[in-house]
C-alpha cells in the first residue's frame, strides 16, 4: 500500500468522522452528546499524560493539578463580568480579572499556557531526581494546587467554586481539540524529539551518553503534557458548567492514569480507545450503583461501586497484563489491511 493511498484513506475517514460529529451534534440526544464530549476530553487527557508517562517514562501524577489550573484560568477569562460579580459574593474578584472577558478559544489557550508554565515549574526541579520521587512530588503538586485554589478566595472564590459557567464546549470544540492533540503528539513522538523521549524512557544513562539533553527533553514532555491537560480542564469546566477545587482531586488523576495504563503505556491508540471506552462505561455502569434484584435478592445501591470495579480492573491489568490493551503498538492502515488479508486466506 503506498503513501498516497493511506493519505486518502486518512482524509476520507476524517471527513466521515466530521460528518458523524455534525450528525451527532444536531440529532443526538443531549445525554449521549454529553458522554461524547467527556470522551473527547478523556482522549485529550489520556494522550497528553501518555506523552509524559508512556513515551518519556516519567511517572507523573499531577494531571488533576494542571487540569484545575486550565479550568480556573480559562473560566475566569471567558466568564462575563456580570456573572463573575454574582459568583463572587463573599469577597469580590480582584480588579483586572473582574473586568476582562475574552473569547472561549483564547481563554482556553491562556489556560493551557498557564498549566504549561506550572508544568515547567514543577517538572524542571523534580526531573533531576526522577523515578518514584517524581510520582510523589507531582502527586503533592496536584494536592497543593487544590489547597491554593481553596484558599485564594478573591481569585478562585475558594471552596465555593465557580458556578453557572457558559456552556461553550460542544462536539466541535471537544473533538477538534482531541484530534489536534492526537495529531500533535503523534507528530511529536515520530519526530527526532520523540525518539529522544523514547530513548530516555528506555535508558536514561545511555540516552545521555548519546547526546540527548535529558533536562530539555523531559521538561519539553512535561510542558506539552501540561498544556493539553490545561486545555482539557478548560473544556471540562465549560462542559460541566461548574468547577470547584475539590473536584480536581486525586481520583481524577487516577482515572486518567487508568486510561493510560489500560490502553498501554506508550500507545496513543490505546489512550484514545480507552478514553472513549471509559467515558461510556462510566455512564453505563451506573446501574451497579442503583438497587437491583438478583435471583429474588434485593441488593441496595451502593455508591462508589463503579470506581471499585475500575480500580479492580486497573490492578488486575497492572499485575497480569502489564502491557495494557495495545502495549506500544499503534493503529495504522497497514495493520488493518494486513489482518484483513490474513483473515481472507
Amino acid at each position, binding site marked *: 500500500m503506498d503513501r498516497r493511498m493511506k493519505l486518502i484513506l486518512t482524509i476520507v475517514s476524517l471527513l466521515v468522522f466530521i460528518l458523524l460529529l455534525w450528525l451527532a451534534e444536531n440529532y443526538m440526544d443531549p445525554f449521549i452528546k454529553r458522554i461524547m464530549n467527556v470522551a473527547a476530553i478523556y482522549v485529550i487527557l489520556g494522550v497528553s499524560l501518555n506523552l509524559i508517562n508512556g513515551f518519556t517514562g516519567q511517572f507523573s501524577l499531577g494531571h488533576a493539578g494542571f487540569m484545575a489550573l486550565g479550568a480556573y484560568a480559562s473560566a475566569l477569562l471567558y466568564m462575563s463580568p456580570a456573572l463573575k460579580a454574582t459568583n463572587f459574593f463573599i469577597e469580590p474578584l480582584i480588579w483586572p480579572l473582574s473586568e476582562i472577558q475574552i473569547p472561549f478559544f483564547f481563554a482556553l489557550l491562556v489556560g493551557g499556557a498557564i498549566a504549561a508554565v506550572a508544568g515547567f515549574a514543577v517538572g524542571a526541579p523534580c526531573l533531576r531526581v526522577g523515578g518514584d520521587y517524581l510520582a510523589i512530588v507531582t502527586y503533592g*503538586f496536584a494536592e497543593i494546587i487544590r489547597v491554593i485554589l481553596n484558599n485564594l478566595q478573591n481569585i478562585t472564590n475558594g471552596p465555593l467554586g465557580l458556578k453557572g459557567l457558559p456552556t461553550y464546549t460542544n462536539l466541535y470544540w471537544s473533538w477538534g481539540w482531541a484530534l489536534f492533540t492526537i495529531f500533535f503528539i503523534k507528530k511529536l513522538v515520530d519526530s527526532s524529539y520523540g525518539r529522544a523521549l523514547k530513548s530516555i524512557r528506555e535508558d536514561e544513562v545511555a540516552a545521555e551518553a548519546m547526546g540527548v539533553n535529558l533536562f530539555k527533553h523531559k521538561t519539553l514532555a512535561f510542558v506539552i503534557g501540561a498544556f493539553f491537560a490545561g486545555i482539557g480542564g478548560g473544556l471540562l469546566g465549560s462542559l460541566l458548567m461548574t468547577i470547584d477545587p475539590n473536584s480536581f482531586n486525586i481520583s481524577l488523576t487516577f482515572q486518567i492514569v487508568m486510561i493510560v495504563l489500560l490502553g498501554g503505556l506508550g500507545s496513543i491508540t490505546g489512550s484514545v480507545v480507552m478514553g472513549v471506552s471509559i467515558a461510556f462505561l462510566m455512564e453505563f455502569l451506573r446501574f451497579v450503583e442503583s438497587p437491583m434484584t438478583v435471583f429474588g435478592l434485593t441488593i441496595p445501591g*451502593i455508591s462508589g461501586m463503579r470506581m*471499585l470495579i475500575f*480500580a479492580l480492573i486497573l490492578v488486575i491489568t497492572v*499485575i497480569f497484563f502489564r502491557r495494557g490493551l495495545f502495549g506500544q503498538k499503534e493503529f495504522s492502515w497497514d495493520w488493518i489491511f494486513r489482518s484483513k488479508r490474513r483473515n481472507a486466506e
Partner: protein
Amino acid sequence: MSPDVFLQHLVNGISLGFIFGLIAIGYTLVYGVVKLVNFAHGDVFMMATFFVFYGFTLFMMPWWLAVIFGVAVTILLGVGIERVAYRPLRDAPRISSLCAAIGMSFLIQNIAVVVFGGRQKSFYVPPSLTTTFVIGGVRIQAITIATIVVSVIVLLLLTFLIKRTKMGLAMRALSVDFDTAKLMGINVNRTIAFTFAIGSALAALSAILWALRYPQIWPFMGVFPGWRAFTAAIIGGIGSIVGALFGGFMLGMVTILLVAFFPEAAGYRDAIIFVLLVVILLVKPTGLFGEKKSR
C-alpha cells in the same frame, strides 16, 4: 506569646512529629528493602482506624482488645497487599510495581468507600485520654503524653528488632545489597513479608494515635498524612530510620508552629511543606540523613 504557650505548642509538635515519624518509618523500611514507594501505605493507615472502629462498635470489644485486633488485621492487610500485588512484579520493571502500588491505593480507597461508606464516622476516644493536665501553667492533653510514650516504646522495640535479631539483620542485608543477600541464603520472601508486617503495624499504631487526636475517620483520611509522612521520609533521606523520624519531627513542628504563629497562613501549610520538599530535593536529593547513591 508567653513561654508557657510556646512550650504547649512544642509538646504538641513533638507528639504530632512522632505520629508522622512512625508512618514515615513504614515507608522508609519498605523502600529500603524492596526499593518501592508503597503508595498504599496511607490507605493501610486509613484501614487500621476502621478495623479498630468496627472491632469496637460491631464486635463489642473492649477498646484495648479492639486496638490489638486492629493492629493484627492491618498487619494481615499489609502482608496481603505485598503478596498479591507487589510480589508478582518484583522482577518486572520498576514502573510496573509503581503502577501496582498506585492501583492498590486506588483500590483500597474505593473498597473503603463501598464497604464503610463515604461519610465521616466518629472514632471512640476513651475518656481517660481526653483529660487535660496542667504542669506549671502548661496545659497538656493525656493523648499527647500517651502518643509520646507509645512512640518511644515502639521505637525502642523497633531498634532492638533491627539491630539485635536475625530478621533485622536480614532486612538490613537486603537493603544494602539485594542480590548478594539472596546469595547468602536469606529467605527473601519471608524477610520482605516481615518488613511489610512491621510497616503496617507502625501504620496501624500511628493511625490509632492519629484518630484519637482527630476523631473523624473516613476513606480518604490517609491521603494527606500519608503524603506528609512520605515527604518526611524523603526529607530525612529515604531508607534511613533516624532520618524518617527527624523528617517527621520537622513536619510536625512546621504544622503546629505555623498554625500557632501565623494562623492566617494555616491553610497553606501543605503548600509550605511541598516547597520544603522541592528545595530539599534540589539541594540534597538523598535527604538529610540519606547515603550517597553510587551511580
